[in-house]
């Protein structure tokens, strides 16, 4: 019996000894961000933060708050010259392990993304690149398959060191969980399912960050994140609008609502009798109560949407707009003029066809579900019978050419992104690209000109016309743009909200956390 007690005492003593803090830095130096999901990978080649939101990596260029490009690993933002772009690298940049960055690393990174054997999830974004070459250590040349103006927007991809990845299976490389970059923070540890710890890169070319230790904690549950934020365990987090409400008017924390290019809308199948009729689509566009969607479904964290390009970006055409509140009289007028007259059950009929269609939404997505139900109830009031159907993506995909679908897309960076694939007739029916078989020769022409034109003013004119044509033909009913809601503890200078993309884990408001300074 005595021996057992001695053992127990020894174990307790051991536990106590180990729990004493081991050279932990002062509390103030650590900043904990609560993220809603764990990173699949930290390797940019496999799809980690291609739009430049990683604290570990730098791209050739980065973005200012107004989304204009500025040099990062490149010395200056180059001109696009037909099918070649030449970057000159910044001198004296080193990776976190001390090895110098050269053009070989840049070429390796891009060519690895393009190599089909690597199964990179972002390969499609770089389809315009033929190959990337490194003629000398400070020069990188991109060769394009065709003139592609938005290529510079793809130069935000984080650069990885060739030395640590060459000749390895990227799917299994140790680098994926122990990454080495050139970014403002260096990798310390990753506890799977729990958190990632980073520390400041004191020799960062852009200046050492003030926040010395950055912890990215993964807390998938929204309520748990809000609770841990309130308890002071987290210094900043991303929350759904309703969960963030409790932090409003609370001392010591600030709620940021940042606009995004991330829209939700109804995609109409264009080759079907009901949704193929422009009168139905336009009437629906007028009848939808977008202000109610923003106020009730999004709890105020959103904006009404009228087109595929977000207001607040340089490319948005201000003429493409509408009323956030519904105009049912105008909607009914359009339907009557087109010959859709009320049937006995209140649903409009034309030539024996009732104004009825199915509106699919991914069953697990509660936001899209609420939007679908709202669209159905708005449609009912002008005599259109919309039947919402919650399905799994695998069930949705084969039905997209015949049933409408609540979809979401949107990139703030370039009007070519996504829109080319969504509206060019050559992509009709190609998986999730142009699922409604939209086909307009003028739009095809505009999209082709837009990506081949380097001149900014000319491009702006092209995409203005593109937005107008989409607005006129209404192949989609755009509903809302989402706002991302952040809660941040403490007073900081350097926080720069910019119109965000859909993905906003460490991009978004945290993309320049290395420049945040504690307000005096």
């Amino acid at each position, binding site marked *: 019996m005595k021996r057992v007690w001695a053992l127990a005492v020894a174990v307790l003593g051991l536990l106590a000894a180990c729990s004493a803090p081991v050279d*932990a830095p002062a509390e103030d130096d650590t900043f904990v961000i609560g993220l809603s999901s764990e990173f699949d990978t930290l390797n940019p080649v496999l*799809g980690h933060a291609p739009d430049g939101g990683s604290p570990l990596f730098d791209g050739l260029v980065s973005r200012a708050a107004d989304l204009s490009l500025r040099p990062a690993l490149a010395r200056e933002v180059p001109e696009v010259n037909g099918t070649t772009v030449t970057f000159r690298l910044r001198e004296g940049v080193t990776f976190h392990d001390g090895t110098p960055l050269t053009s070989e690393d840049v070429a390796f990174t891009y060519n690895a993304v393009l190599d089909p054997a690597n*199964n990179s*999830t972002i390969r*499609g974004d770089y389809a315009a690149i033929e190959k990337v070459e490194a003629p000398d250590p400070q020069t990188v040349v991109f060769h394009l398959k065709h003139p592609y103006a938005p290529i510079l927007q793809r130069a935000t991809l984080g650069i990885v060191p060739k030395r640590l990845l060459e000749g390895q299976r990227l799917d299994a490389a140790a680098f994926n969980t122990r990454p080495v970059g050139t970014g403002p923070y260096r990798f310390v540890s990753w506890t799977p399912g729990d*958190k990632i710890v980073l520390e400041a890169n004191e020799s960062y070319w852009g200046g050492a960050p003030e926040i010395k230790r950055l912890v990215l904690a993964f807390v998938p549950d929204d309520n748990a994140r809000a609770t841990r934020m309130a308890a002071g365990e987290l210094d900043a987090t991303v929350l759904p609008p309703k969960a963030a409400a409790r932090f409003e008017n609370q001392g010591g924390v600030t709620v940021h609502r940042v606009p995004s290019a991330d829209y939700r809308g109804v995609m109409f199948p264009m080759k079907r009798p009901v949704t193929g009729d422009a009168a139905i689509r336009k009437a629906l566009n007028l009848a939808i109560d977008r202000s109610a969607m923003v106020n009730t479904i999004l709890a105020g964290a959103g904006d009404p949407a009228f087109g595929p390009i977000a207001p607040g970006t340089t490319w948005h055409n201000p003429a493409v707009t509408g009323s956030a509140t519904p105009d049912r009289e105008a909607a009914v007028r359009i339907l009557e003029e087109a010959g859709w007259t009320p049937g006995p059950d209140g649903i409009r009929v034309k030539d024996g066809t009732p104004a009825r269609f199915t509106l699919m939404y991914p069953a697990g997505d509660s936001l899209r579900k609420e939007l679908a139900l709202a669209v159905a109830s708005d449609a009912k009031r002008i005599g259109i019978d919309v039947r919402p159907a919650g399905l799994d993506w*695998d069930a949705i995909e084969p039905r997209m050419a015949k049933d409408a679908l609540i*979809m979401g897309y949107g990139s703030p960076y370039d009007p070519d992104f996504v829109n080319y694939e969504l509206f060019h007739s050559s992509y009709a029916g190609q998986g999730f690209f142009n699922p409604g078989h939209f086909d307009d020769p003028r739009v095809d022409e505009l999209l082709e000109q837009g990506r081949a034109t380097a001149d900014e003013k000319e491009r702006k004119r092209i995409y203005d016309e593109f937005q107008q044509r989409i607005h006129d033909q209404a192949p989609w009913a755009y509903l809302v743009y989402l706002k991302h809601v952040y809660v941040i503890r403490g007073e900081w200078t350097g926080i720069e909200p910019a119109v965000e993309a859909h993905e906003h884990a460490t991009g978004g408001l945290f993309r320049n956390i290395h420049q945040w300074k504690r307000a005096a």
Partner: protein
Amino acid sequence: MSLAGALARLVAWRLAFVVPLLLVVTAAMFALAKASPFDPVRQYLGERALVTSPEIREQIRANWGLDRPLAEQYLTWLGNLLTGDLGESRSFHRPVAEVIGERLGWTMLVTGAAIVLMLAAGLVLGTIAAYRQGSWADRLITGVAYASEAAPVFWIGLIAIWIFSVTLGWLPAGGLTDAGSATVTVGEVARHMILPVAVLAFSQSSWLVLFVRESVIGALREDFVIGARARGLRERTVLAGHALRSALLPFLTLLGARIPELVTGAILVESVFSWPGVAGTAVRAALAVDFPLLAALTLLATVAVVLGNLVADAAYVIADPRTRVLGVS
């Protein structure tokens, strides 16, 4: 038959049995995964699936060999397995062996601690309940045991979080270490372990408490216990040395048979407490249709169950001379 001989025979029989069993289990898993309506390539791409062309999706499918006949995929996997290659996890972008390796320890820690706690608490409480049969202590212990047998593990876990983390603030609600700490220290892990271990042990120990109680009650009526008492032995010696000891034999087999339940319990406990173990990883692998990882985890679970039963039976052979003498194995 000698003890060693009996053990060797038992182990040989089981090993002969385990190879076809593993073949059947893994083949069935391949067939099920093939029949699953979920597309692994879409799960792999996640939200990027919507902006990835069908051509690239097909390329990835071909790279993974998913376009091959099922039998060929299975045989390739089996061949790689025999050379020790478990393949790469698609959802973690890492070798399966590494993903499992770094998590298995945490699962073993929690389940191991839970088994120890469950055995200790189960034996003590069951014996007390039996000895004081009908008393308030007995009624309390059996009542709670019945209630916990009926309650789902995740529900007990959530209640425990609500009481000890949210309301009282004594213990962390989840994770391996505190959010702010960079290193894994024994003290922090021990503190974070308390709730998962207690919940797992609590939810799995009710059958043990009830079983021990029944056997000890039965043993207390036996002649040898009455004899021991008549000889004037101390009550503690009678209880622990005579009644409990003879009541424990069938318990060994029961323990082996209960190991699968511990595995499912661990899955739920790890999910509720964000504990970074293999069991929680199984859920993620299944949701992502991460085939190589799922296959390896299925294999692991099957082996765990077979080993559990083997150890229990071996312990039985050692503990009970009758199984040797009669050659039952």
